[in-house]
Structure formats: structure tokens, C-alpha cells
């Protein structure tokens, strides 16, 4: 039996400004290692909110979250930062690279923070990841000098640098044209199938979702299919 990389147990989320509204209700599911899962649902149904909780960035929720079997509900901010660094690779809709640095440095950054390898080893690994994503030629360009599709691939390379237990992505193709969306999908598929990388991808592109291994569907903050 595959082990669970992520377990969400009865996760609920309320916003309080100014009235209290419940955005997530009893969200419960497990993700097995190597699974390529998508989360779908209408705009505003709580997908991003859920992903921010699962990625440990939002700690204001009810319920229980485990990553690699570790309960995260009672951990300090610094410990959660370490969990994100070592175990989670995050890909945003708007690429979000550090424009002060070049592509290679952006990819290396989480590895330098983790500090388990020397800078030279991290640089070597960063080049390997960029090769897998077909953008090694851009390595020394400034992050704001490459195209949107390339930026998203750099963000994926950065998410991979510490060999995370899981990659989470929030609408990773939401800002890309069809051709680049297709490239990103193929990369995710290759990561899942060849590298057994666990992936959790929020999307409202049902065509994208239908080609993943598993779909979790949200409606008004509740899981209605998984």
C-alpha cells in the first residue's frame, strides 16, 4: 500500500470580515504518494483557500492537516516554513519569481535555504531541473527577461529543487495560452509518471482535470466528488 503524503481531516475555514462566512466545510481526503490529483470547482468555491491551508501558509482553520504523516496543527511559524521548504513545492498562477535574481538563482533559492547540500551541488541540481523542463538555455537570464510560459517552467523547477513530497499548484495554466498550458500539463504528467512526483493542482480547466489521475470536486466549500 502506498503511504499518504497528505491527509486533510474535517478542514473548515471561516472568514470574519465583517460578517462570519464559512468558506470550507469538513473537507476530508488523503493523497497517496505519486498521485496526480486535481481540485476543480466553480470560481469562489474555496479552491485557493483550501490550497493555502494545505500548503501551511494559512494556519487559521479548523480540522487536522498531516503531511508525510506529521501533524501540523500545533507547529510554530518557523517549523511550518521548514516544512514548506523541505516538503512542499508551490507553483502560483502568476509565476512569482524574484526579479532581482537570474533564473538559475531563483531555482537554487529554496535549496540554499534548506542548506543540506553545497551551493555547487545545488547549482548542479538546478541545472538538471531546468534541463528536464527544457529551459536550461535561459539559466543566466534575469527572471523578468523571459516569457510567461518560461517563467512558469522556472517556477516548476524551483518547486522541484528540494525533491518535495508534494507539488501544489494554484491555477498554474490560468495565465497561459493554449500552447504553454499544454507544455505545463505535459511536464506535470511526466513528473507524475516518470518521477512518481505527487501533485495537487487546482484548476478550473476541466479538460486539464480530466487528464489527471484523480479529481476532487468542491461545491460551496464541500467535497462533492473524489
Amino acid at each position, binding site marked *: 500500500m502506498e503511504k499518504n503524503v497528505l491527509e486533510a481531516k474535517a478542514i473548515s475555514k471561516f472568514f470574519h470580515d465583517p460578517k462570519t462566512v464559512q468558506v470550507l466545510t469538513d473537507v476530508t481526503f488523503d493523497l497517496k504518494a505519486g498521485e496526480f490529483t486535481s481540485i476543480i470547482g466553480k470560481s469562489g468555491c474555496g479552491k485557493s483557500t483550501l490550497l*493555502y491551508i494545505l500548503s501551511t*501558509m*494559512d494556519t487559521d482553520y479548523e480540522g487536522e492537516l498531516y503531511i508525510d504523516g506529521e501533524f501540523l496543527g500545533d507547529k510554530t511559524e518557523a517549523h511550518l516554513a*521548514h516544512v*514548506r521548504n523541505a516538503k512542499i513545492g508551490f507553483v502560483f498562477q502568476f509565476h*512569482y*519569481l*524574484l526579479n532581482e535574481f537570474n533564473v538559475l538563482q531563483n531555482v537554487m533559492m529554496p535549496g540554499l535555504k534548506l542548506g543540506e547540500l553545497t551551493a555547487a551541488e545545488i547549482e548542479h541540481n538546478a541545472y538538471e531541473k531546468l534541463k528536464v523542463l527544457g529551459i536550461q538555455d535561459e539559466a543566466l537570464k534575469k527572471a523578468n527577461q523571459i516569457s510567461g510560459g518560461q517563467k512558469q517552467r522556472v517556477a516548476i523547477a*524551483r518547486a522541484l529543487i528540494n525533491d518535495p513530497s508534494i507539488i501544489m499548484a494554484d491555477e498554474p495554466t490560468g495565465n497561459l495560452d493554449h500552447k504553454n498550458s499544454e507544455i505545463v500539463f505535459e511536464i506535470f504528467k511526466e513528473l507524475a509518471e516518470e518521477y512518481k512526483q505527487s501533485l495537487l493542482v487546482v484548476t478550473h480547466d476541466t479538460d486539464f482535470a480530466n487528464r489527471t489521475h484523480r479529481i476532487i470536486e468542491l461545491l460551496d466549500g464541500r467535497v462533492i466528488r473524489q
Partner: protein
Amino acid sequence: MFWINEKVDSIAILKATGFSGMDVSLIFITIALVIGVFGGALGLVFGFGLCNLIDMVPFDTDALPTITTYPINYDLRYYVIAVIFSIAATYFAGYFPYRKASKIDPVEIIRGK
């Protein structure tokens, strides 16, 4: 400091990829201190050069017959005080912004786009 406001996106990225609030503060304190040290050093060099120039200005007074140029005190203590002051000023001017940087919520920034 003004540049923290321009760096909120970068801070959000750092936090999302595993830097803690403390790490982010340390980065900004380091940058501020580097600016403080360089600024202080630059000030010392300028100050010393300016003193040398002023030192050459003729200064005649009957009350002090031995003095012919403008009197300058080159005591090292004043230079040390200047350096400490410039570093301390940079550090304290940045104190609240560092706290702000360490408290930036990445979710708000990432969602806000």
C-alpha cells in the same frame, strides 16, 4: 523603509518557499547594515577630506599667534562616534519596517493579484 514596500512580492515568495519571518527580517537587517556601514565609511572619507581642505584655510588672529590655519581636531574618537551613529541610525530607522517585513502574510499577497 521605503524599499520594503517595493519588496512585498519578493517577501511573499521567500515565505511561500520556506523562509520564516525571522529569516526575512535577517535579510533586511543585513541589507540595512551594509548600507549603514558603506554610508558610514563614505561619510568618514568625505569628512576627512573636507577637514584637510579646511585645515589649509588661513586663519589669522592676534589672540592666538601660533595658529596660522583654521584649527581642526583630528581625534579618532569623533570618527568612531560617527561610524557607530550611522550604523545605529540605519538599524533603528529600519526597526519597524523589519517587523513589518517579518509579518507580511504571503497568502494576502498571492491572493491579492
